[in-house]
């Protein structure tokens, strides 16, 4: 066991921990919370509710692998959903253009923040903290009051369900109900697959790990460190825009308080998924399972009757804290073993 642990890369070690934790948790939920969790639809509902979070967490992982962080994503989601809502209802806009708008907002944040972080050497946390406050403030400037989107073509898109064959269940009346996922889930899965491929097999993906692992040696290997950092922020911003639209598609309204604390959930998912804050270590599949673990624990908390709003915040924070400490202990122990 010791030898195997030694031979594992940090990425794989943390990924294994994450996946084991998720399955233990889900099985625990089935055992203690009863049949609800046994239905496939419960699992799909977790996906439906968290499609946007999956996309955001992917972006977050990219930035964290290069050694940075982006806490503006929640604000960008709010800004995207509010802008798109206003555009669709008051601009009488068409759905396709609203998608472009979402992507443009995300890209704009990514480019500006990436430039400030990569080329002006400002701490990513300061830049994106300002970005978060800017996005939240702008959301209120765009429109103060929360409202639902009435646009018909949008509602049609929102109501579209993708049926998952063979996963349905029989309801109380004895009718067969098909299991479904929303469009956002398809987008999220696509993003996960694309990002996984990008990180594993492309030159850019590998340079993300190199830069995050060690800035100096990456530079000596001839990697354009600044461009890599810039690209990670740009991609994160782009994914925040896409995630924002998926979120908008799920809730169908614009509000300044949308997605509050979502950046925190994205960071937590990435960390639970085995991405190291210090950079250089991480895996998109792990992030995906991180989101699932996080939302499963939320579901457990709410179905255990601890429905008050504060429990969610406290459990997420506790879980994040636990994983941060586990990470630092695991890596420290591994270092010691390697030295022996």
């Amino acid at each position, binding site marked *: 066991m010791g030898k195997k642990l030694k031979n594992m890369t940090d990425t794989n070690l943390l990924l294994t921990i994450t996946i084991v934790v998720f399955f233990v948790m889900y099985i625990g939920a089935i055992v203690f919370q009863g049949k609800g969790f046994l239905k496939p639809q419960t699992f799909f509902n977790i996906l439906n509710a968290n499609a946007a979070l999956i996309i955001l967490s992917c972006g977050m992982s990219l930035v964290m692998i290069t050694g940075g962080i982006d806490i503006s994503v929640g604000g960008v989601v709010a800004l995207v959903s509010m802008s798109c809502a206003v555009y669709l209802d008051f601009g009488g806009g068409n759905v396709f253009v609203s998608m472009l708008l979402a992507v443009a907002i995300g890209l704009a944040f990514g480019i500006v923040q990436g430039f400030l972080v990569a080329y002006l050497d400002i701490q990513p946390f300061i830049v994106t903290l*300002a970005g978060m*406050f800017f996005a939240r*403030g702008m959301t*209120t400037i765009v429109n103060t009051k929360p409202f639902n989107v009435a646009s018909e073509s949008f509602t049609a898109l929102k109501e579209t369900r993708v049926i998952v064959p063979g996963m349905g269940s029989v309801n109380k009346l004895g009718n067969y109900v098909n299991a479904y996922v929303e469009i956002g889930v398809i987008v999220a899965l696509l993003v996960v697959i694309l990002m996984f491929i990008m990180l594993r097999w492309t030159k850019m993906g590998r340079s993300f790990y190199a830069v995050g692992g060690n800035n100096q040696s990456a530079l000596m290997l001839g990697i354009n460190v600044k461009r890599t950092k810039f690209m990670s922020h740009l991609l994160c911003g782009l994914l925040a825009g896409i995630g924002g639209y998926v979120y908008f598609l799920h809730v169908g309204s614009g509000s300044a308080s949308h997605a509050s604390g979502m950046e925190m959930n994205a960071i937590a998912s990435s960390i639970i998924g085995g991405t190291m804050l210090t950079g250089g270590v991480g895996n998109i599949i792990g992030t995906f399972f991180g989101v699932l673990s996080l939302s499963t624990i939320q579901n457990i908390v709410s179905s255990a009757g601890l429905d008050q709003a504060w429990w969610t*915040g406290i459990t997420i*924070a506790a879980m994040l804290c636990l994983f941060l400490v586990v990470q630092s202990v695991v890596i420290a122990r591994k270092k010691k073993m390697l030295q022996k």
Partner: protein
Amino acid sequence: MSNEKKVEKGNKNFLSGLFRQQIFIPIAALIILAIFNLIADPSFFKITLGYNSAGDPVLSGYLMTILDYGSELAILAIGMTLVTAASGGQDISVGAAIAIAGSVILRVLCGTNSRPDTLQAPIIVAFLVACVVAMLFGAFNGALVAYFKIQPMVATLILYTAGRSIAAWINNNELPIVSDPTFSYFGGFIPGIPIPTPFFIAAVCVLVIFLVLKFSTLGLYTQSVGINENSSKLNGLNPTFIKFLTFVILGLCVAVAALIKVSRLSSINYSVIAKDIEMDAILAVALGGNSLSGGKFNMAASILGAYVIQFLTTTLYKFDVQSDALPAYKAVVVILLVVLSTPKVREWLSAFGKKLKQGKAVKEVG
């Protein structure tokens, strides 16, 4: 002739010396804001002596608002400067920590009944309990940063999310109201004194921190840890403990700010109290010209920076900017400040300045 030249030279040295002083940045910002307000609307500076509902004399006006609300920010800026200097990162959980400390104060004052007619405990006891709790949370942050070596902003992100939930949980999500008038003195006015009390509290805190910095090695040690952790370790300091200590001190500052905050309302709103104050506190440190990546610091500049931030906020309010939209403007200010203070931009600016000078010289010769 030569005498005149000397005077001129002296003047120039004095001016360039002033430019180099760290405290120049907040002073310049203050002057710019003041001039802007003077042009836009001189009534900004009017202070009127009135009487509040209890019949006590109070001074009111925008300047008094700045003095009042800037004070709690100044208290936070003290702790934030130390944390920034030692750890090279910022604590973003101060707003949430204020909610917790404020909730503790009300919990102790009100006991189990959320609307008592009399105080269930002396105010000083409630305050001391809040101090202990806030310092414990500070210690939690400090332990994560110092002993587990987690980046400060990420470590404090934990409390940032959980803090307001914990605050609501302490009081069972009830909204206790303190009816005793003496409790409102801390965030309002003491009868007979027309200047807001927070200003005096801030003055005491500032005095204490200056005495501490002057007569203890705290300032020196935090700076050396911030500049180079390894070499301070080799010199016999304990960087881990010093980082930890700065977070505990910030906890104490948070408790004082929380007392003022809850005293203003004699109640608490968990999701709104001290909202976005972490941004203001970080801004105060940045505006004071302190490097946000740690190292040397100037406490006076930070404290002045806090009042300048409040000046900016009050100015924006006066121009009917919604409170929810404020962060957008402040974010722009932060980015501008940080961009201007990066070494690269400074190099560009100084190169640009030299070019201008050379151009002038060439013209004069021509």
